[in-house]
Structure formats: C-alpha cells, structure tokens
C-alpha cells in the first residue's frame, strides 16, 4: 500500500487516490496547426521511464483535487509531491 500525502488532506492510503498518468504533457495550443505525428505524440506517446516519474494523481475519495507526484517506478517510492501548475522540482526552471 502506498502512503500518499495529499497536499490538502495529509497522508492517506493509496486506495483513496487515482493515478492520472504522466504529468507535464502540454496540449498543443493550436491543435489545428500540428500534424498527425505531433498530435499522436501528445495523445498517446509516453516517456515511461524506469526510475523517477512525474505523474498526476487525484484524491478521488477525498478532496477530489489533483496534484503532481514524483515517484520511482522501480521501487514505487514516493519522492515528492507538488501542486498542479508547478514545474518539476528535480529539473532546472526554464
């Protein structure tokens, strides 16, 4: 069981949450202007790393708010939690 610290509710068991997949995937601002390959990359292609993964989580059976999480996919260890809209903390700001 993962113990996940919701930034709004505190530490709660994994079963209250739902994973929303990879974080920081930006929707092309003008979908009509991108080709099929770029649109497919946005919709379907994923980084899928073995190691630190930035992903979105929803506190579905709680406050129903979204947040971002850094987790190691090899060990399932939670590394950090940060708010939606913030950039990835382990990457330099651009």
């Amino acid at each position, binding site marked *: *069981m*993962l113990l996940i610290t919701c930034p709004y509710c505190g530490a709660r*068991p*994994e*079963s209250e949450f*739902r*994973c929303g*997949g*990879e974080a920081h995937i930006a929707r092309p601002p003008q979908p009509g202007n991108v080709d*099929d*390959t770029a*649109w*497919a*990359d946005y*919709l*379907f*292609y*994923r*980084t*899928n*790393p*073995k190691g630190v*993964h930035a*992903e979105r989580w929803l506190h579905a059976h709680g406050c129903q708010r979204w947040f971002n999480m850094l*987790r190691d*996919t*090899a*060990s*399932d260890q939670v590394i950090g939690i940060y708010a939606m809209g913030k950039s990835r903390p382990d990457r330099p700001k651009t």
Partner: protein
Amino acid sequence: MRYSILSVLSQALQGNTGWKPVWRDAELKPAYDIVIVGGGGHGLATAFYLAKEHGLTNVAVLEKGWLGSGNVGRNTTIIRSNYLLPGNIPFYEWSMKLWEGLEQDLNYNAMVSQRGVLNLYHSDVQRDAYARRGNAMRLHGVDADLLDREQVKALVPYLDFDNARFPIQGGLMQRRGGTVRHDAVAWGYARAADQRGVDIVQNCEVTGIRLEGGRVVGLDTAKGFVRAGKVGLACAGNSSRVAALAGLRLPIESHVLQAFVSEGIKPLIDTVITFGAGHFYISQSDKGGLVFGGDIDGYNSYAQRGNLPAVEDVCESGMALMPMIGRLRLLRSWGGLMDMSMDGSPIIDKTPIEGLYLNAGWCYGGFKATPASGWCFAHTIARDEPHTLNAAYRLDRFATGHLIDEKGAGAQPNLH
C-alpha cells in the same frame, strides 16, 4: 535427442542418467544475420519460426536474465481466440491453431489443454454483446457457443448464480480455449530453436543499439558488441526502455499485473471461468492450485510486485463469483510487467529505423498470442513486410487513427 515413448522407456531402463540439457548455453558470436532481444515466449517463438518457416538460422536470442524469467513464466496460462474485431480475430485464431499443433511442431510436451474458456454474462445487455462477439467469431470460423443459465449451471454448478447484484444469466463458451503449461512453452521453443542452430544467450542484457546512417548495425551487450543485420525487439514490459536505446518513443506505459495461486486442492474447476461483472479469471492448475488474476494496479511500475489494494479487489471479485473459495488460503502472488499500449492492442511492425523491428504492447494478453506473435514477427523480419495477419498491428496507427479498440473502452491504458 528426439522425445518419444522409446526415449522415455530407454531412459527408464538406464535409470534416467542419459538426459541431456534441453538447449546449449551458447556463447555470443561476433555477428549474426538477425538478433532477437528478449528470451521470453515471443522472442523464442520468433527465433523458432525464423528457422522453421524461413530457413534463417544465423540467429541469436539475447536474454537479460535466465530464459523464461519474464512474463512467459508469470502469467495465468490461459489461451483463447474469442476476439471481436477484424484486425484481431484472424491473428488470435491462427495462434490457437498453432497451439493445437504446437507439441508435434516442437516435439515437446507443453501440456496444451483445451478445457474451454467460459465468459459469464450478468445482464441482457451483456448477453447481447456476447452474442455479437460469438457471431463475429463464428463468421471467422472460430468456435463459440452462447450458453443460457441452465447450461452454465450444468457445467459449473458451484458459482453464485443468484448473486443479488450480478446474477449469472449465462456465458459465452469457447471450447477450444484452455490452458498451457507456460514454462514448457519457453523451454519447448528454446529447445526447438536451438536444435535448428539458433544461439540462445542468457545473462546478456542489451545496453545499447548502434545506428549508422539511420540503420541498425549492432548491439552493445553485457557480453560485448555484437554485429547484427536485423534486430527484433521482443521485450514486452521493458519495450519503452529498450526502444529508447535507439531513440524511439512508444505509445506504451509499463504497469504491474498481479497473479495468484491458492493452495492445492482436489480437482474442482475443469475449465477457465471469467467473471463478467468484474475483472476476474480463474482456472485450476494440474498441481491443484487455483490460478487467478484481475486488474492492473493502476500506475506505471517496473517493480514486478504489486500492492495490497489490487489483491483485495481481485479476491473480492473472486468471492462474488465463487463464495466457496473464501476458505482457501492464498499460496503465492506475484507481479509481472505489462506493456500497456494505448488502445489495448499489440504492435508487430517495422520501425522508422531500418533493420529494427518491434514486437510490443501486449497489455495482459501476450501469452495466448505467443505462437502467432512469433510466427508473424518472424515473417515481418524475414520478408521486411508484415503478414496480413499482423497488418493491423502497425506502430503508426496511433497517428493515422486506425486504433484497435477491442474492448470499446477508449484509448487509455487504465481503461482496458
């Protein structure tokens, strides 16, 4: 050595002292025509069919761990071809036909047992959907029988037919479906490929894919560089990582799926039963343990072990279907890595890199596909073009919009 009743009898007389290792532990040569990355069921089957169907024997299979240490030894051993969509049915039916002749093909006992696969339905809507599926199967020459409640009751009387929330109304039966001894599939393919001259190299992780001018020229491995004319990737679970060595990004997420086995009991379940109201499938192994599984855990993971919420969910589904298993003790549970493709269907195709071929995205349906996957992948590599059976499993379908949404649930790995 060819296995036969005579070989068994003569070994019995010699006190079983003359059995030889089933395959050579080959040393890596400096160059091959074709190198297959991944010594699981699909990789070994590919090597076997390259040799058998196309006469290509200057082939190596590289395996990072020991042979069959991945998903071929971690699944629930079910085979079936009860698919709905035109891109899927002929492929999976070809797989079923290869299963039916597999043991003769390989001269190896893989314990193929066509004990039937029964998918239960619990509502009028689900019955109609199964009738449609059964009709689609029969139109493609696959066997399917729509059973009503009394017919199901005669087969498996111990289910909870009068469940208050999900009463069992009937089921769709594919009698040619069943189970196969999964490790024997890996061993049988390895032995048959080895006998035809294929080198199977274990403990040989691939650490790099070398390209020159947009073409693959070889692989860096734990045992040094190996030159390769063509490279086939058959490492589902880790496809994204291996493809990334060649700079490819894939429409795949790796998730963990757990499977379970109970303590051994006397013969109880003589078929494969799937619960239509939850995600749960169960059969009984020849050792007597009940083998069952359910959903993926729900988040990307390479951990090869699952978490307790999924265990609880699977066991609850089992209890809703067969309340009597509540008194059984769980013997073991384990996790395997699933290549969850975005539309729930696999990829067997060429890649944008010349000489590099991809076999990936099997979600949790890879085991039943093992023979046809190897057969089609071998064809794709040898002829440099897909066979009609795997023509729909293209890598570029995510850009062209030709997704294969078998379950009708949408294109997200957490939906199928």
